[in-house]
């Protein structure tokens, strides 16, 4: 019988410093048989294990369409992330997954998509954005709102030009407070949303970021006319097993690691979830 | 006894001197007592005080930081409040201590044996060695006129059984503790019930670094029980709650009493002696014994 906790060994092929405390790791499978059979959807996550330190869940930050490597963006936070930040190319880590339900791609087809990202929240959304760009015809307009505390904390800066030039895709960057030579918008994401006033007809908002941001963005979106089912978010919870067995990541009877991490706002409201 | 207690509780709540009173109430089985948290006057009716009130309620004070709390406290509870004050975990004017004269409480495991009347039940171990029955610090004292005097005479030499155990050989001692500690399931009830264990994150839960194995094997259990006793050196006031709470019946008081005996002999230090007493391991004496140092 297969030991479901056994990770596949992957090698770090490239480390990119996005912001002072976030690094993006490109991981390549040692064994290409596993690589072939390993497919995932944007919004899913893996349990990345640093040998001898521990395991932590990280979402995919690149689109499955761009096959060759797996990318995960890691913010330096605790024991595992600190150990990861110490690593560089050539080191090996373990990867277990993919877990979680990922974004409901079929439901999103034929809709306008509003991506609302805060800080590290851009990682899972980038995977979805690039996926949409690769299947551009399936989706209507794309609006990307990406906020961060300071300009240094904006991630994937090299992707911004690509996103802006893409077909009817608009990118709005914002930082919390004004900085010198900062041209784009200033202000917290919910305020920025009110200024942009994205169209809510036939559109779905995908929100991802720290709990504080989601807590204030939800009412704004509702005010802008988005219905409860049309707002999706991915939850950042403490997930150890990823299999829905260790019992810690539940909201109500749903397990974030198995039934999530992507939930609609209606589901969360139903479960009295407070951010 | 209870009447005076309830009257005082009502008065305190009415005059808003305290926002809540922590006390005892009759338990669901009609005999044993369980903790109760009263915020309204009428609830004060079910406050009781008798030989079944075993718990050390000061453990709950850390859940209400900054609030004005009344607490019903017998001598051992008061000693733990003193240590908490000594370690800046409580502010004296936040706590209103309703001291109760205590003539010993029932050992809880005897309750399960079906005997009912207090007469037959024997007193808890900790009461045998406890000398004064009136608390050493209180704001209001509920005296104990009608209760018969304590049947329990304080032992003449309190650490008798510790010395008997020390006399055993090293193998015997290790075999005894190996059996006891291998039964530990690391449920940490001994830590959670102890008023002295208020650390935001106990060394047992820390992972940066992992101090000792968190799996319930012999190494982890022994390290846990030794460091728990060590971190109580000079702080444990022998309220006996840890031994009472342990589901697998490990004699935890033995370990604490051993340290209590040593620090009494070596440094003449007693836990909870006074609010301005310096912590044992944060001070030293020029001629501390050093016979064991080469």
């Amino acid at each position, binding site marked *: 019988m297969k030991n479901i906790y*056994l990770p*596949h*060994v992957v090698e770090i092929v490239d480390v990119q410093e996005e912001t002072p405390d976030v690094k993006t790791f490109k991981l390549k499978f*040692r*064994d290409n048989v*596993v690589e072939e059979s390993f497919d995932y959807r944007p919004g899913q996550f893996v349990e990345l294990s640093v040998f001898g330190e521990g395991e932590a869940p990280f979402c995919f930050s690149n689109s499955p369409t761009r096959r060759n490597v797996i990318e995960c963006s890691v913010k330096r936070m605790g024991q595992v992330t600190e150990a990861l930040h110490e690593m560089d190319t050539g080191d090996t880590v373990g990867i277990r997954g993919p877990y979680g339900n990922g974004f409901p791609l079929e439901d999103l087809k034929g809709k306008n998509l509003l991506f609302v990202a805060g800080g590290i929240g851009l990682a899972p959304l980038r995977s979805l954005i690039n996926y949409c760009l690769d299947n551009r015809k399936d989706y209507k307009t794309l609006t990307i709102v990406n906020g961060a505390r300071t300009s240094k904390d904006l991630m994937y800066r090299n992707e911004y030009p690509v996103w802006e030039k893409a077909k009817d895709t608009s990118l709005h960057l914002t930082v919390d407070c004004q900085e010198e030579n900062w041209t784009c918008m200033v202000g917290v994401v919910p305020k920025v949303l009110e200024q942009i006033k994205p169209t809510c007809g036939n559109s779905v908002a995908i929100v991802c970021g720290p709990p504080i941001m989601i807590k204030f963005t939800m009412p704004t979106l509702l005010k802008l006319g988005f219905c409860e089912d049309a707002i999706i978010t991915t939850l950042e919870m403490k997930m150890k097993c990823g299999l829905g067995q260790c019992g810690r990541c539940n909201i109500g009877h749903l397990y974030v690691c198995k039934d999530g991490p992507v939930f609609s706002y209606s589901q969360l409201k139903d479960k009295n979830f407070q951010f | 006894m209870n009447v005076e207690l309830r009257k005082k509780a009502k008065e305190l709540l009415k005059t808003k001197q305290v926002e809540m009173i922590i006390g005892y109430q009759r338990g669901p089985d009609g005999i044993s007592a369980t903790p109760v948290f009263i915020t309204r006057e009428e609830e004060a009716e079910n406050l009781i005080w008798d030989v079944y009130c075993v718990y050390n309620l000061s453990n709950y004070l850390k859940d209400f930081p900054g609030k004005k709390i009344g607490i019903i406290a017998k001598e051992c509870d008061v000693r733990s409040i003193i240590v908490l004050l000594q370690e800046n975990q409580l502010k004296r004017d936040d706590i209103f201590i309703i001291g109760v004269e205590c003539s010993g409480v029932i050992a809880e495991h005897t309750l399960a044996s079906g005997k009912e009347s207090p007469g037959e039940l024997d007193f808890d171990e900790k009461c045998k060695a406890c000398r004064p029955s009136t608390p050493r610090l209180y704001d209001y004292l509920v005296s104990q006129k009608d209760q018969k005097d304590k049947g329990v005479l304080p032992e003449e030499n309190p650490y008798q059984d510790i010395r008997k*155990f*020390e006399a055993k050989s*090293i*193998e*015997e*001692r*290790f*075999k*005894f*503790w*190996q059996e006891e500690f*291998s039964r530990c399931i690391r449920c940490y009830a001994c830590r959670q019930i102890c008023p002295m264990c208020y650390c935001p994150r106990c*060394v047992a839960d820390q992972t940066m670094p992992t*101090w*000792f*194995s968190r*799996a*319930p*094997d*012999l*190494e*982890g259990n*022994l*390290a846990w029980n*030794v*460091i728990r*006793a*060590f971190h109580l*050196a000079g702080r444990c006031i022998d309220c006996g709650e840890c031994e009472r709470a342990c589901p697998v019946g490990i004699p935890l008081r033995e*370990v604490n009493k*051993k*340290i209590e005996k*040593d*620090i009494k002999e*070596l*440094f003449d230090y007693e836990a909870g002696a006074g609010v301005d007493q310096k912590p*044992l*391991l944060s001070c*030293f*004496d*020029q001629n*501390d*014994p*050093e016979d*064991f*140092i*080469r």
Partner: protein
Amino acid sequence: MNKSQIPDHSPQKNSGDRNLKAPIKDFEPKIVGFLCNWCSYAGADLAGTSRIKYPPNIRVIRVPCSGRVNPLFVLNCLMNGVDGVLVSGCHIGDCHYSEGNFYARRRFAILKRLLEYIGIDPRRFQMAWVSAAEGERWAKLVGELVEEIKEAGPNEHFGGNR
């Protein structure tokens, strides 16, 4: 991908099955020494510069002061199969930080008696004062320590599931 399945030791038994590290006869004890940087470590250096030979069983961990040695370190060593632990600092009154060894003395007086009470051989945890000028005494101390711990035998109670 994963290597041959190695047999599992189910947890109930795992604290029981100890593989004795070496037959008692030629048992080479492993001793950990926490040496205070200013006196004992310098004393050990002096033993080096004066080429005084002593058995190689001791592993030295440098700490700024004997007051820095946390009982958790000692417990960690004993629980992971180390046969002997030594904490060595400056003589009373000589401490570079003036009070470090006072605290260490009081702390380890309690720990030593507690470990003995639990049934751990007192020879396995020892304390000493070695000053920067006592190279020879350090070498003699290590020699005696190794003999005593050879007598005490390997620490086979713990460290089985390494």
